[in-house]
Structures are given as C-alpha cells and as structure tokens.
C-alpha cells in the first residue's frame, strides 16, 4: 500500500511570521531573515518546497508547513508522507524532493549513501507504547502480558522502523511474543487495535496520541532500549538560506520542538 498524502498546505495566520523569524535565527544562526531570499532557487522550482517525511510526522509537519508558508508566502510546501523506506527509495530513484525527514537512521542512510544528502540531524525521538483498545479487553498492563498465547498481538514488520524497534524492545525484555500479524506500517498496526481485531500492539507514542481516545497507550520501561531517532536533511544542492535549509531549521527550532512535543515526540 503506497499510501501517499500529497498535500498543499493552506496559508496560516500571519501571527507566526515573527516567531518563525526568531526561531530560524536562534536554531542555527545561518539562516537569512525570513523573506529576504524568497526567490532562492529550489530544486523543485516555482517557489515550491517538497518535503518527503515519514508517515508518523503527518500531523506535526503539516502544522510546521503552514507556519513556514505563513512566514514565506512566496513558497508553498508540498508533503509526501509515507513509509520512510519507500520514500528513501523514491528519492534514490530521482523523486523531486528538497527535504527528507525519516523515521530511522537506516532509511536516511539509504539517501546519504547515495550522496543525495549529507549531515542529517536528529530532530525527534519516538518511543514505543503498548496500544490497547480503549476498553482493554485482554487487561494488558505491561509488556510481559503480550507473551500470553491468548493475547492477540499486532507488530510492525521487522523491515519497517517500528517493527525493528519492537524487536529491540522485546529482546531487551527477554520476551518471546508471537504476533498474529506483522503489519506493513505503524498506521496499519494501529488500525488493527482501533478496530479491536487485536488485543495489543506496539506502536509509537505519537500514533497513540494521534488516534484520539480510541486507543490507550501504556508506557513500559523497555521502550527506552528502542528509542527511534528521526533524522532530517536538506537534500544535496540546496544552498544555505534556501527554502529547504530554512525548513530544516524551522523543524530544529524551539518552535519546531514545541509542535513535535505536542504531537508526542521527544526532542533531543
């Protein structure tokens, strides 16, 4: 399922313009004042900034995109949200991306190995939670409960970051869990919980938060052993002060941190 959300963010209130200017300067010090270089060349051209980002960033980045556009009305931000691995392959295959925000260092490595990006920065961390249906039918309170054969568990497939993290966490706990399914991404895993098809799943805290009240998240200590780093990089060819660099700066700024924290991420 190549679920891709290509969105054109709408212009947000102008109030944020000042905040953005301050944030951009504060984070790296290398960015020019907002708007001074609205005509800076971008690989995508036409004043469009194309951001490829992990699906778990959908909420936070959409908001940051609005902020960015409000500060720089000459640039519109387009997002391509999806599985980090798929996005990395699309970028390697020549997809017109300006910024890549991945859910794992490994997927970012695919892009840096191809010399398409350099010096990625970790901007967020995501930790796992046990997600259970709101009524918690199997009465789960800790990771050990997942090893019960009667408990139906969904995990992400080991090939995707949330699955790799789950494997690490379970190993750290010394548990053997037999899931009924290895889902292709974290959203699909969460859906199985939302619909009550499984009793529990290991997903990111951010996904639990984004699900509203439909799913309950349970913290567990072993999650600390499986923290997922989210790296971001402007793709090669984007000069300092270009919209790509400025977007990365915005994500790394205190304002970016606020948005990410509100979405359930931890920031480094």
């Amino acid at each position: 399922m190549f679920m891709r959300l290509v969105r054109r963010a709408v212009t947000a209130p102008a109030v944020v313009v000042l905040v953005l200017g301050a944030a951009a300067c504060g984070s790296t010090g290398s960015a020019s004042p907002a708007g001074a270089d609205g005509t800076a060349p971008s690989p995508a051209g036409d004043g469009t900034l194309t951001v490829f980002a992990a699906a778990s960033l959908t909420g936070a980045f959409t908001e940051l995109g609005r902020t960015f556009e409000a500060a720089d009305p000459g640039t519109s931000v387009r997002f391509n949200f999806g599985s980090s691995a798929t996005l990395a392959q699309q970028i390697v295959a020549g997809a017109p991306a300006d910024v890549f925000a991945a859910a794992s260092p490994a997927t970012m490595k695919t892009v840096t190995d191809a010399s398409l990006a350099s010096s990625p920065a970790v901007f967020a961390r995501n930790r796992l939670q046990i997600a259970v249906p709101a009524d918690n039918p199997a009465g789960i309170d800790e990771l050990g409960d997942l090893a019960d054969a009667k408990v139906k568990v969904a995990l992400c497939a080991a090939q995707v970051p949330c699955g790799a993290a789950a494997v690490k966490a379970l190993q750290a706990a010394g548990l053997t869990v037999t899931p009924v399914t290895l889902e292709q991404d974290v959203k699909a895993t969460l859906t199985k919980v939302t619909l009550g098809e499984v009793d529990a799943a290991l997903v990111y805290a951010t996904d639990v938060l984004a699900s509203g009240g439909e799913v309950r998240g349970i913290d567990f200590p072993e999650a600390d052993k499986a923290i997922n780093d989210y790296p971001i990089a402007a793709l090669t060819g984007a000069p300092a002060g270009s919209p790509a660099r400025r977007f990365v700066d915005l994500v790394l700024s205190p304002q970016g941190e606020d948005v990410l924290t509100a979405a359930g991420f931890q920031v480094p």
Partner: protein
Amino acid sequence: MSGRLPWLLLAPALAGMAFLVLPLAGLLVRAPWSTLPARLAEPQVLEALRLSLVTATIATLVCLLLGVPLAWLLARTAFPGRRLLRALITVPLVLPPVVGGVALLLVLGRRGLVGQWLDATFGVSLPFTTAGVVIAEAFVAMPFLVISVEGALRTGDPRFEEAAATLGASRWTVFRRVTLPLIAPGVLAGAVLCWARALGEFGATITFAGNFPGTTQTMPLAVYLALETEPEAAVVLSLVLLAVSVIILAGLRERWVSRI
C-alpha cells in the same frame, strides 16, 4: 499483407503493448541474476509462493461457486432492485482494496457485525488466518468472474435453455447440461481474471488478514515488505510471481484451446 496493416490501429496497439511490457522488462533488467538462485531457495519465498497459489486457487473456486449462480441470477431472472444489485457487485472493483479490507474487518472482524457472532457462536475468527486471505482475495476478485459470466449469459441464446426444458430437463439440469457448457468460455475467462486478480491481491489481504509468514503472507505482501529493506529481493519475488502465473495461465490456455 503487411503493407495493408492499418497504421491507425497498429500504432496505438504497439504503444499499448510497450506500455504493458516495458515495466516487466524493467524488472528483468534490474533483477540480481547472480544472487537469484540463493534468494529463491529461501524458505520464506517458497512459503509465500505456495500460500499465494493455494489461496488464489481456493479464492477462485469460491468465486466460481458463488459467482456463477450470482451471474445467472442477474442475467436470467427479473426482480426488483436488480440494477442496483448489479451496480453493487462492481463495488469491490472501485473500492481501494485497503478500504475493502477495512470493510471486511467491520463485517467479519472480531468486533464486526457478523464476525462477533461467528466468534461467539463457533469461536471462529477470520482475520489473521489463511481463510481470511481467501476471503479478502475472493472479495476483490469476484466481480471479475461475475461480470464475465453475466456477459456470457447475456450474449448466449436463452432459447437453448427453453429447448432443453421442452425435452423434460429440470431447471438444474438445464443449467448443468446446457447453460454451463454453453457459457464455459466465459466462465473460464472470468476464472482466469479472477485467479490473476487474487494472486496479485495486496491491500485487502494485508488489511483484513494481516501479514504473517506461513499463514497470511502471500507473495505480494512479501514483495512489499522486501521493498522496505531490500529492493533487489522485491524484484526477485515479483519475477517469481510473474513467471509462475504466466506459466500456469499459458499452460491452461494450451489445454483449452486444444479442447474446444
């Protein structure tokens, strides 16, 4: 003869062929031929292939069992709401397969309308089982069979059935000995489409039946997940799926052509 070929037809025909065949050529060119034998020997690959062939075949049988009578109902009887029903039958074609999978969960899932009852009464839960894979594939593939068979029934001459009735054949005998043989080519074409669609099914399967090696991980699911980490492996798996389906379909075609 070659000088007489109408270019207005030939040019788009060749373009169409290229359009369909070139992606296949892309897979062949990019295939990691040197590591191919080793990859094929991986037990997971054979497991997924076996599961794909078995589930697609069972799904096709299910579609035949339910779809042919459904097509007959649509083509040969008149009842109120028949047009609406015919439109509804194409729903799985239009529905994104993932949505189809969610819809199946809402009906047959553990908390689904019917699934709840199945679970409570028989202790049967379909998601995450091989039976769930068959259901997801049959759901998505059945319209191909129904539409094909209904078309065959509509273009067929119903007077043969009348002739059979005047010879003393009951409606069931008429269907079995006259209708079915006469629409056999349509049924076979529909079954082939159905099987091919079931074999390539991804979205509804992974959503409804999940993904677990040996139980519900069919080839398309294996291909998708391989794509996450090892694009080369994904190419290999895709080629295997393609090769097997082409060999099977070509083999069947030989048989029909010689028989009919």
